[in-house]
């Protein structure tokens, strides 16, 4: 649905983005994650035909953003970062105007405005002047105008910025539920948000793509680095243990287990040792570990799987650039 190939944007000497290449498939909810000034907004503005790329090609819903911008614009819903709205209009008249300019047929307009209002929780606010709404509600109006023509592609730039915690949760759920029927790409610099909403996260840093993280059930599953080309399965297969018992006995006992690839003693204090056990990925040895420990008469104080967090994935991917450059 969205294809970006080698997108580059230069302002004179300054390069905002370079060589940005990625794909978003139909129905995916993809996050565009990166620190501020990484190039997220620039990339989105190129995808929405707001500005042309200096180099590279982008296609949205099959249409080239440079050659067929009007076709692209018919098929996207875009919410810019600062949520610019006509603050002197009422919610309903604004959404009516947006419906008209986005090509919603007159006969369908009323129904579409109504459903956008309902979907974004704006019921009861239709006749309020936008200038009098709180930030959270303005954001909803912004989302409503992006959805008003039921576009196949949604491009959302930092959709939860500036909202209070409760509003953030509502908007996140809204966005998550839009996937499947719509293709969504959203940008954020909040890591937990990306892992909550998106199935795949493209990491951009200093104008370049650092890598992609694929999530499964909200946890890091696959990491692909764009700089080194490596693909990691992030299942670290690690278990963290705190065992009451002498490490001189624990280490060899655990080490002798065939399914365990390594045991590391992290620390020991007052007879309690902290261990990290690495095992083959894709198997769950927690039950076996527990029974081994208990059978040997040691105290099992803590046992939990160690998962790579998105923070770690992010740091790993963005660190590579520093070491390579």
């Amino acid at each position, binding site marked *: 649905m969205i294809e970006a190939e080698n997108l580059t944007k230069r302002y004179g000497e300054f390069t905002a983005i370079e060589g940005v290449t990625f794909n978003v498939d139909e129905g995916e909810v993809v996050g565009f994650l990166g620190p501020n000034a990484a190039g997220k907004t620039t990339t989105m503005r190129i995808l929405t035909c707001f500005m042309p790329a200096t180099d590279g090609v982008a296609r949205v819903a099959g249409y080239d953003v440079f050659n067929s911008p*009007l076709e692209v614009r018919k098929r996207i819903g875009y919410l810019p970062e600062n949520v610019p709205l*006509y*603050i*002197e209009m009422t919610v309903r008249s604004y959404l009516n105007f947006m419906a008209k300019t986005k090509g919603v047929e007159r006969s369908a307009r009323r129904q579409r405005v109504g459903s956008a209002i309902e979907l974004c929780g704006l019921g009861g606010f239709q006749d309020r002047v936008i200038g009098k709404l709180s930030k959270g509600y303005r954001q909803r109006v912004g989302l409503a105008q992006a959805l008003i023509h039921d576009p196949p592609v949604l491009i959302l730039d930092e959709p939860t910025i500036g909202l209070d915690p409760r509003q953030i949760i509502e908007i996140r759920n809204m966005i998550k539920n839009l996937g499947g029927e719509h293709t969504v790409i959203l940008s954020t610099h909040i890591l937990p948000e990306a892992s909550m909403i998106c199935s795949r996260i493209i990491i951009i840093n200093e104008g370049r793509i650092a890598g992609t993280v694929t999530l499964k059930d909200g946890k890091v599953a696959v990491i692909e680095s764009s700089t080194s080309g490596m693909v990691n399965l992030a299942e670290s297969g690690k278990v963290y243990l705190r065992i009451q018992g002498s490490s001189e006995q624990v280490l060899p006992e655990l080490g002798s287990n065939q399914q365990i690839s390594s045991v590391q003693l992290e620390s020991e204090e007052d007879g309690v040792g902290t261990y990290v056990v690495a095992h083959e990925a894709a198997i769950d040895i927690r039950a076996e570990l527990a029974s081994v420990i208990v059978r040997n008469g040691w105290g099992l104080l803590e046992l939990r799987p160690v998962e790579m967090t998105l923070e770690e994935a992010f740091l790993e991917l963005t660190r590579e650039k520093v070491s390579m450059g």
Partner: protein
Amino acid sequence: MKNVPAIFVREMKAYFVSPIAYVVLVVFTLLTGYFFAAYFNWATRYQGEADMRVIFLNMSITMLFVVPLMTMRLFAEEKRTGTIEILMTSPVTDAEAVLGKFAASLALFTIMLALTFVCPLFLIMYSTPDIAPMAIGYLGLFLLGAAFLALGTVTSSITRNQIVAALISFVALLGLWVIGWMSGAVGSQIGKLLSFISLVEHFEDFSKGIIDTKHIIYYVSFASFFLFLAVKLVQSAKWK
């Protein structure tokens, strides 16, 4: 061109929500009405006859000051608030945006002119004036206004500051207004060219009640040129 009506309506609503439209209407009608009363008072007493010619000339000069205020917000405000980003990423062409906004400013201007009809109305009520010259005079004002508004649309699209847009518009209009005054001082060919370009030269005939198609063509071409320029400027702003 199907988006033009929607943009037109939205822009009209925006005009009447801000104080600018009301200020402009009041100021213009007040000044025109005052001048009308003063002149006709004096003329009927001391001259024995009077016509609207001087009034029309006076209105055209007032327009120099007032019309830039009508166009200053058209694109500048959208750039300032960022709403231009949503406009430019919707399936609306640059030409539709320019025409819709220009049409709204033209409609506001027409309302402003129409409010001054009360002056000739007084004349019709209390005497039997020649209607034709007055109608032609208003036609001239309308065409002049369209030209002013087209230029103002251009200046609004080159800046995000409304005041700057209004100032540049005023200075440009003034320049094009007085450029004809030099025609006496320079050689005859250049002099003719300068007075041809001048906005006010073409209005003279209208104020006298004379319709000459060459003046109509001038104003229509002027407005068309500047509207075309506005579309190009809006397009080029995306190229930065």
